[in-house]
């Protein structure tokens, strides 16, 4: 067994246990958390190199052979996602050290973060649908507690909506699993792909497509696609910035990952219907998200709606269903996770400085903190898709894939939404950074009474540097994404790696 496959799950688990043990010793807990995040990053980078060099890696936990035991698989797509989780873990933990209050830390904040990361990495690495459900729940439990931690009124309200809708989606996922098992007799993804590749001959599409729709709704709620996204803007702005940055970066992307995995590996028989539906949903998600953002008046609420809008782009690649389009999706996910986490981290600094999330009462931050303002521009412009930042290349590849397949409508929607995103980012820039501090806010502390921000900016600068790096080295990053896209389109290698001689 390749130990690199289990390490991204074990390292957060052990870190979480030890952090829980040393809950009262705040400094020990913080050191452990940082060490754990570094370890996770190291292990995920190792896994990435291994998969890049030696192809798809698979392992059977507990030594039971493939369709029966618990399978861990890492193809390029999975490895990229784990690596991104490692990067985000480092950034968020570093940022938490300066931004999260002692009360939350004593309640086990760091321990929860690592439980959450374990769930996220487990979801990316598992090769079994029921295990995916279990990892989802691990991740959700961590996120539920983090969402409610601190017990402020707004947080409680957000948490109830978040918990209810996520449990609804879990129940739907579970029902779909039961029906799928009744039909196919297996829940191992590679085995399912193998069985379903010739199911079309013997059985009508009907049942399979119905199941596919159940999975689409279940994962769609997690991924926050149109029209299932309402929990996201209702809850993501309530917890402290470090927590919402972690959620914004990783949680919805686990839903997107599950959608892409299931709809490239298992449900591909009726692509004319399912993938076109995904494409339509993608368009609607983009538009509704960005229009929602335009109407918002708070920093983080604007960003929350932009998550929804960006999910549309990721799903769009899946809907187009060509290697280039999937590569575009993978590239887009990578770009988005880094940029969006960064924007949420910046929003934390902005709210700390301005002491309010309301855009109208913010202002003058460029004058007071030019460094923060410039670091805001990097991810913001990348999100809008300005060259030479990462977002430009992500959108370029998706647009090219769309034009190649003749889907002109979705490409034009996408470009229009990009413009609106740019407008929205400029609104944030104008309101929070550029315009002078409104007179009403000067008395209440405002931008004047701010201390040293350098410690806050380490993670922000780290993520901004990665954004620029992806932009500059877009060619080589994209070639990896293209390989991942080709692996997704040809599931034979994946099936072979998991089942091996067992077929």
């Amino acid at each position, binding site marked *: 067994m390749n130990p690199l496959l289990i390490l991204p799950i074990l390292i957060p688990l052990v870190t979480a246990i030890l952090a829980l043990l040393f809950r009262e010793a705040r400094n020990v807990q913080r050191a452990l958390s940082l060490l754990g995040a570094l370890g996770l990053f190291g292990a995920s980078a190792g896994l990435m190199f291994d998969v890049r060099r030696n192809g798809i890696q698979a392992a059977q936990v507990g030594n039971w052979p493939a369709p029966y035991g618990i399978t861990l698989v890492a193809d390029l797509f999975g490895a990229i996602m784990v690596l991104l989780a490692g990067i985000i873990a480092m950034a968020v933990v570093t940022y938490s050290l300066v931004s999260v209050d002692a009360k939350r830390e004593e309640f086990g904040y760091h321990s929860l973060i690592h439980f959450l990361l374990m769930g996220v990495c487990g979801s990316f690495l598992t090769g079994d649908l029921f295990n995916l459900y279990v990892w989802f729940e691990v991740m*959700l439990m961590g996120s539920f507690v983090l969402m409610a931690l601190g017990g402020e009124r707004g947080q409680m309200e957000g948490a109830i909506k978040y918990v209810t809708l996520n449990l609804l989606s879990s129940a739907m996922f579970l029902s779909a699993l039961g029906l799928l098992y009744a039909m196919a007799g297996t829940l191992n993804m590679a085995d399912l792909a193998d069985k379903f590749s010739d199911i079309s001959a013997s059985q009508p599409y009907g049942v399979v497509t119905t199941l596919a729709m159940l999975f689409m709704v279940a994962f769609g709620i997690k991924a926050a696609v149109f029209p299932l996204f309402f929990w996201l803007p209702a809850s993501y702005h309530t917890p402290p910035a470090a927590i919402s940055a972690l959620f914004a970066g990783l949680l919805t992307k686990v839903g997107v990952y599950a959608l892409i995995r299931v709809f490239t590996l298992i449900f591909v028989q009726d692509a004319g219907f399912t993938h076109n539906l995904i494409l339509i949903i993608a368009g609607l998600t983009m538009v509704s998200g960005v229009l929602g953002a335009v109407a918002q008046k708070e920093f983080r609420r604007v960003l929350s709606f932009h998550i929804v809008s960006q999910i549309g782009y990721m799903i769009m690649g899946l809907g187009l269903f060509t290697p280039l389009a999937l590569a575009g999706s993978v590239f887009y996910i990578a770009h988005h996770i880094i940029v969006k986490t960064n924007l949420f981290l910046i929003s934390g600094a902005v709210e700390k400085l301005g002491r309010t999330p309301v855009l109208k009462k913010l202002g003058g931050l460029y004058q007071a903190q030019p460094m923060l303002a410039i670091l805001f521009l990097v991810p913001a412009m990348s999100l809008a898709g300005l060259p030479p930042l990462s977002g430009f290349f992500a959108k370029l590849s998706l647009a090219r894939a769309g034009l190649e397949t003749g889907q002109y409508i979705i490409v034009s929607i996408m470009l229009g939404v990009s413009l609106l995103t740019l407008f929205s980012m400029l609104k944030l820039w104008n309101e929070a950074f550029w315009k002078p501090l409104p007179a009403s806010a000067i008395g209440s502390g405002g931008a004047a009474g701010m201390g040293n921000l350098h410690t806050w900016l380490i993670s922000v600068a780290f993520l901004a540097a990665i954004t620029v790096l992806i932009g500059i080295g877009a060619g080589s990053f994209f070639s990896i994404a293209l390989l991942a896209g080709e692996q997704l389109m040809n599931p034979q290698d994946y099936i072979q790696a998991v089942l091996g001689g067992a077929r």
Partner: protein
Amino acid sequence: MEIVLAFVIGGLFAASVYMLLRRSLVKLLIGLALLSHSANLLIFTSVKLTRGSPPVIGMNATALREPFADPLPQALILTAIVISFGVMAFALALAFRAYRSVGTDDLDRMKSTDD
């Protein structure tokens, strides 16, 4: 027997959705509990109810004796029950805290962050 259980599951799902759509926080929790039960029951039923021997190959046998019950769905349900136990315990605590900090169990009044 499957037909009867199918109706039971349908009824449970309907009841849980009805409860989820109420305005009261407590009814929301009941709805969530019913929802996980109905999903578990659905798994249980969808794999057909077999009255047979346990899926264990005996000491002197080489193959399973037909008909045997499929053990996997029950393992799945067991896992799902454990998970829903943890989640429901958390949801109850959350609802209690939310009731404390908001001072009402009316979901329509829990939207101070929505405007």
